[in-house]
């Protein structure tokens, strides 16, 4: 009976939340006026004590002396800051994470010549097929102030076509602002099938591009004079590359590290497609080349682990804990002022020098955006790799490293609008533009800012202002650890390795079982160390008669994790990511 009761309660609750969900209440009016606010019309242009009137989804009036329509819902904007809604120049917003997950080598596929879709070649794919209006990522980004996203499909070398979407809507149709505006390209190889490495991917790009170029010609000739000519018959993949070959649709090419970006730029130079370089994390040394080639740049919003202040604090905490447990004495960084000097001196000169170089490298990554600003290259931001919760933190780290607030704001508003060709409808708070608006209780660049309202297409979303969160212990688990997780090890320059990881147990006592998709053998791991949201364990496996030690360390956030796999004591390391496929009860 108790069981039934709780079930009933659950049903009731979900029904309640559905009907009372804030976003689902129809607006009483489609006219709003935000009065007496600091209106940042666009980067560098502020109206103090201004009023902005929204009517039927558009910005109706902006200025100091504006008549407020009688039917307007008035939001007293005293001391509030109003910005144009943010635009993600590239993201996966609205694409459920379970869709298009990478899979292991599929059975019955010719390894040397797999079907295009299996090999990661789906340029014909539009996001309309996978876009979910109620995907959690949409509300999460809106909460951060984003109103428009250039959403690209997830996948490998040619994942499909991107569309510009509004981060609000009742259906995919409702959300799509401009469809199929880009091709998502990368150097990502297929899992143990051709093209299985970066060199294979680059060769395949050349193959498909030139094939499409010739096919296009063939079709054109046939259209003009078919008599006596072989009928053109090409795959949808090849046909969908015609606009790319014709340079009508740009390739948004993912090039995070300097070498990726270099390789993408070389390929572009060779084949001649229109390119926007995106996800750039280590691009500062290529600034002169980006500039001279006029390549549009979209910087990755993710930063290296340990590079931002909060990360450092976390590291410090971890370091302290480790010391207490293991009695180790390690340097934990600049913040560690309370420690007696003699402890610091125990770091060898060599370690100090190495640490200095790591810190210097981190500073380069954090300073990338400032370097682009200094070089006068306008850029937008890509959210494909950043955790949504880190967006603000990372932006502030970039600002602290020298990026001006105006340039930061431009990278979130006017620049992406220009890159995406929607400047006439979005990116600023000018009259006639789409009413995509952020209302914050203070300057967005203050650490303790709260976004109170986000308007998308004139539709008001009131944000729950964070009540003081219970101080969670730093590093406390944010998700349930136990369950079955699927993982992908991204082997540098090689095909990814995939499999399943089962974590069994509760509280602080866990065991694990791990398998790969290519091997049925399961390895049992009896000791799993859990420290907050960090899970680490080690095991050995027999490879060609040699015992190979492998260790993994992963950080779990809700239903996702990321971390590092280390083989043979660090001889080789590779990033690992994973997501939960089932909880123990399922």
């Amino acid at each position, binding site marked *: 009976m108790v069981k039934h009761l709780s079930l009933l309660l659950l049903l009731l609750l979900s029904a309640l939340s559905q009907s009372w969900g804030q976003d689902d209440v129809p607006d009483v009016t489609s006219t709003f006026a935000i009065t007496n606010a600091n209106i940042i019309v666009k980067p560098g242009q502020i109206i103090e004590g201004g009023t902005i009137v929204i009517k039927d989804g558009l910005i109706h009036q902006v200025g100091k002396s504006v008549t407020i329509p009688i039917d307007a819902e008035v939001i007293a904007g005293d001391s509030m800051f109003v910005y144009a809604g943010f635009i993600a120049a590239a993201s996966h917003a609205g694409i459920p994470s379970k869709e298009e997950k990478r899979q292991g080598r599929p059975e019955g596929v010719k390894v040397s010549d797999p079907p295009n879709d299996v090999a990661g070649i789906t340029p014909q794919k539009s996001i309309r097929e996978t876009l979910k209006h109620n995907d959690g990522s949409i509300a999460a980004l809106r909460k951060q102030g984003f109103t428009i996203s250039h959403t690209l499909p997830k996948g490998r070398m040619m994942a499909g076509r991107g569309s510009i979407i509004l981060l609000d809507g009742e259906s995919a149709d409702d959300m799509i602002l401009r469809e199929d505006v880009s091709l998502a390209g990368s150097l990502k190889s297929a899992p143990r099938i051709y093209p299985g*490495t970066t060199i294979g991917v680059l060769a395949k790009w050349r193959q498909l591009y030139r094939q499409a170029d010739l096919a296009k010609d063939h079709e054109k000739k046939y259209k003009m004079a078919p008599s006596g000519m072989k009928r053109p018959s090409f795959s949808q993949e090849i046909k969908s590359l015609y606009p790319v070959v014709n340079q009508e649709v740009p390739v948004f090419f993912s090039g995070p590290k300097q070498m990726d970006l270099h390789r993408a730029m070389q390929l572009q130079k060779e084949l001649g497609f229109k390119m926007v370089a995106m996800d750039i994390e280590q691009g500062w040394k290529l600034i002169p080349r980006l500039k001279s080639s006029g390549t549009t740049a979209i910087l990755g919003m993710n930063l290296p682990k340990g590079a931002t202040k909060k990360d450092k604090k976390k590291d410090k905490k971890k370091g302290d804990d480790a010391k207490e447990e293991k009695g180790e004495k390690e340097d934990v960084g600049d913040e560690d002022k309370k420690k007696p000097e003699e402890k610091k001196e125990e770091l060898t000169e060599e370690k100090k020098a190495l640490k200095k170089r790591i810190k210097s490298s981190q500073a*380069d990554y954090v300073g990338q955006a400032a370097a682009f600003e200094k070089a006068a290259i306008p850029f937008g931001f890509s959210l494909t790799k950043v955790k949504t919760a880190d967006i603000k933190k990372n932006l502030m780290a970039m600002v602290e490293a020298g990026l001006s607030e105006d340039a930061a704001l431009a990278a979130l508003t006017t620049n992406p609008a220009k890159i995406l060709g929607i400047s006439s409808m979005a990116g600023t708070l000018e009259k006639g533009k789409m009413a995509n608006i952020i209302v914050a209780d203070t300057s967005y660049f203050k650490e303790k800012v709260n976004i109170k309202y986000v308007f998308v297409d004139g539709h008001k979303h009131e944000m729950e202002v964070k009540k003081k969160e219970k101080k969670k212990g730093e590093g406390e688990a944010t998700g349930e650890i136990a369950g079955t997780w699927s993982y992908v090890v991204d082997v540098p320059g090689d095909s990814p390795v995939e499999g399943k990881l089962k974590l069994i147990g509760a509280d602080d006592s866990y065991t694990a079982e791990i398998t790969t998709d290519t091997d049925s053998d399961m390895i049992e791991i009896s000791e799993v160390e859990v420290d907050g949201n960090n899970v680490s364990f080690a095991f050995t496996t027999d490879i060609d008669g040699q015992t190979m030690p492998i260790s993994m360390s992963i950080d779990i956030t809700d239903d996702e994790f990321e971390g590092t796999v280390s083989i043979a004591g660090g001889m080789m390391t590779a990033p690992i990511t994973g997501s939960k496929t089932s909880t123990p009860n399922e």
Partner: protein
Amino acid sequence: MNNSMMNHKLYTAILLLLVSQWMMAQDVLIKNGTVITITDGVKENTDVLIQNGRIKSIGEGLSAGDEVRVVDAEGMYVMPGIIDAHSHIGIDVVNESTAPVTAEVRVGDVINPYAVSIYRALAGGVTTSHAMHGSANAIGGQCETIKHRYGEEDPEALKMEGAPRTIKFALGENPMRVHGEGQGIQPKTRMGIEQVFRKAFAEAQEYASAWKDYNAGKKQVAPAYDVRKEAVADILSGEIIIHCHSYRADEILMLMDVLEDYGVNQICFQHVNEGFKVAPELAAFGASASVFADWWAYKFEVYYSTAYNAAILTKNNVVTSINSDSGELIRHLYHEAGKSQKYGDLTDNEALKLITINPAKQLGIDDRVGSLEVGKDGDVAIFSAHPLSIYAIPQMTIVDGTVRFDIQADPIDMRLDIDPEEEMPAFYELDAHDHHRCMEGVFEELFMHQH
């Protein structure tokens, strides 16, 4: 500006200054060394002047202007920069092991100028190496001849401009295991490997002739573009030199037969441990050989081997080199060449040719490097003693007139790119790039997969 940022800026500035001084292109005058020219004898008390990256003059009592950096080489040995005809350093991918023929892939696409193994090679006097695709496939990918211009950050700047194109072939167990055993496809046997070559050549011939017809206006519609067949057709037309991973004599003869049928004559056999059995045949074909000094028995087909291989091949007039195939061995190729004197009594010059002019010939770059001659590239290695002496220590390595290694200015940490997420502490003895081998790239071998 806070303190740590200031530190960072200062550090970057100092590093930049160091790097720029260290690799400043400058004219160099090497004074009073014992100059081993390779092609024109050994000259005592001789100077070598490098101007604008090329050897300007070799002689006694040379002088140059104030701008020229003078290197005192008294008591030292000056030789041409060492060349390694088989290596996998400086590239991010070695094997595209998913198909028996992958002629279309190019390791030149994935050069990594930040590979610290390049600097280590410089510290062993090596100025040029042949960055090769691995040996998983019968026809592997195209290789790249790179100059060890460590310090350059543009991968393109490492490519030796004008060097002929080369491609990796492989015989025997590796392609049989990866494709035959691994995927159950051809080649399962050594016979199958021959057929893979013949089929690829025949298809490329057809392909090339179809394009010829189209370009001559005989066909309305272009043939289906095939990037793989394009590359194989370039082998047939003599544009690409074959470098073939090989061990057994019977297979070596087989490949020469196949090449003869298709009129291909540019080939260097790599490893070629049983080369001594077919040395006259190799010489008659005009094939060259790139061997290990004394490395074998690491798999079944490599048991029948001898340390006399290099000497026997040399005495039979086969252009022979000694290679490293390793990020570690590349640092002491001069020792490896020295072994050919213990086994086979080669003269000093014959031994040093194995790591200079001969590999240069095998790569088709002997007009540019491999000996100290006026007009050639300013690639020089300076040793404390005769390079074939076990006591020799490399002192300075110059590439195109730029000092890229100087034992007097050799900081502990020479990495150019630091992983910002690197864990502390870090030891680099086991740098993954050093362990690139022919069969690298099948990660599952390292990861829970058993053959």
